[in-house]
């Protein structure tokens, strides 16, 4: 029995040492296509590591959650959305005014504690794919203007959601105007 145990340990060690080397020497074999069942494979092998999203530093316990901060600053009129004309991404006069206020807030003692994502949104008219590109241009013009007012670009990210995330779900101009916006979202602490 002693011998058995010794052999087992030896074998295990050998296997441990040799396995990786053996595995490396194996020629790459492309597996044959597996039989596909009627149901498509739903368990994705996801793409390799995703870039990490914004992470809250947790050394100091924050007084407000980011969502609470967002709601509070929006409620005080310190931070607000920027609206666009149909099919357009250039800044209207009201958009420049709004962006100036947003910039002031971002430079203030309170606002400088945060980083932001500017989301570009579109109304449901227009094609899905073009609207994703258009939303990107909307968030970009907003970011460029804010940066021109002296806010560091390092504190922003942009993303376009096209017409995928409407704020208002009716099909009329009042609603569409609300959906054609660049939204400033607090996504981290600087």
């Amino acid at each position, binding site marked *: 029995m002693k011998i058995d145990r010794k052999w087992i340990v030896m074998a295990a060690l050998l296997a441990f040492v040799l396995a990786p080397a053996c595995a490396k020497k194996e020629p790459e074999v492309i*597996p*044959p*296509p*597996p*039989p*596909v*069942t*009627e*149901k*498509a*494979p*739903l*368990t*994705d*092998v*996801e*793409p*390799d590591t*995703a*870039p990490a*999203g914004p992470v809250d530093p947790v050394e100091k316990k924050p007084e407000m959650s980011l969502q609470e901060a967002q709601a509070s600053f929006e409620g005080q009129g310190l931070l607000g959305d920027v609206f666009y004309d149909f*099919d357009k991404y250039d800044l209207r006069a009201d958009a420049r005014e709004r962006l100036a206020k947003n910039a002031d807030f971002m430079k203030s003692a309170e606002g400088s504690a945060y980083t932001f994502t500017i989301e570009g949104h579109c109304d*449901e*008219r*227009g*094609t*899905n*794919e*073009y609207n*994703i*590109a*258009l939303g*990107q*241009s909307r968030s*970009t013009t907003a*970011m460029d203007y804010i940066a021109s007012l002296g806010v560091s*670009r390092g504190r922003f*990210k*942009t*993303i*376009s*959601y096209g017409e*995928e995330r409407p704020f208002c*779900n009716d*099909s009329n101009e009042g609603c569409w105007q609300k959906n054609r916006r660049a939204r400033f979202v607090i996504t981290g602490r600087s």
Partner: protein
Amino acid sequence: MHRSTINTARRTATFLLLLGWGLLPLGWATGLAAQEPPTDGQQSSGLEGGVDPTIVVDERGRVQVRMAFPAAKIDAGLTGDYLEAAREIEQTLRDDLDQTIVFNTQGPTELAVLALTGERSQDFDQYKSLGNQVVLLASIAVEGDRLVLDGWAYDLPSKQSILGKRFRGTLGQARLVAHYMADALHYQFTARPGLSLTTIAFQSDRDDGHQELYLMDYDGHNQRRISAHKSTSGYSDWSPAGDALAYMSYWAGPPGLYYVELASGKKRPIYREGTLTLSPSFAPDGQRLAFGHSRESNVDIYVCDRVCTDPKRLTRSQAIDTNPAWSPDGRQLAFTSSRSGRPNIYVMDLDGSNVRRISFEGDYNEGASWKPDGSQIAYASRRGSRFRIAVTNLVDLETKLLTEGPASYEEPCFSPDGGRILFSLRRGKESQIYVMNADGSDWRQLTHEGNSSGADWSSFKQK
């Protein structure tokens, strides 16, 4: 009109092609369970060489075959699931033939006026008396656990056999068996594959509200999900080999491009630098990819090779340039640009030079799809408050509208034979995928669940 015949070389090619299919693993491409090739496409015994069928080619060069297709002979011993599957095979074959412009088929209903005797020569004369050039006789039986479909086509004037094929498949492969027979017939009469074995990729929010990738057979059957990213994913483009898709996903945050290999379901990133990458389009050789891409800027058109580490920028306008579509000859890209103030369709050479606008009607033109012969581009063209499917002829820039109605019609995509066009029909936020003939006739709704859009038709090569 002129008469034409199919030559011996064509018949030989048909046979070799079918022989080739029999050797390939087929199950994965169609999503049907298959441990072994489901169909073998062998020449049925008793076929003595055959004759050249009498074929009429119309003024547009299209083959038109008037074919009698009486009720298939279903083995009297079949019951239960097998009988049901046999009926599905027959119905699917009828639907397949009905959906190509090649065959003008008379079925049991039209043929009921005939007083058939069971004597072949006399019956053939009767089929011919209704204007048919060809008759298709089909029989369905069971061999072990597999269904067997035999099909024989005869030239009615000469009463000689043209084609004899046998395809076998399991219960779950009933539709596939029929699709193979339809494709064999299509090839016999046109020397080109038909659409019955092609696949359509699309996106839908039907399962949990997120847009995910799906596949369906060309006729809308067998719809199956192939992604579970739980974030907007879609706008896919088939690899020319038909074994993979490139698509966009918000899966990792900023929208980027991914690749899914359909046999394994494995996915990997293609390109996701910058803030936004979207609308992939494979080059016809499958070695390069064009797409829209933004680095904190307006979207521009980029091209990269398979590795895609260093995409090359092709457009440098101040406007939005996006949604590229590689021309079938691989030499040009069609794309959408707002450089005129509104989105319009442009075509450029691969080095970004020789840019010319091809859409001049409507106030918003977007989403180019090349006809596979390179002669036309289809796109969505807004007229008033809604989109219609427009087709512009690239020789004289003549534009035709193909759709009319109370909805918005967007995202056209040509079938690989150029005969059909997929599109999305939108009413407000609701969207479903339809298919029509390339002249705007014969609409069929392909999706019904949730919202579906972004349809892309595979090539023929995926078998």
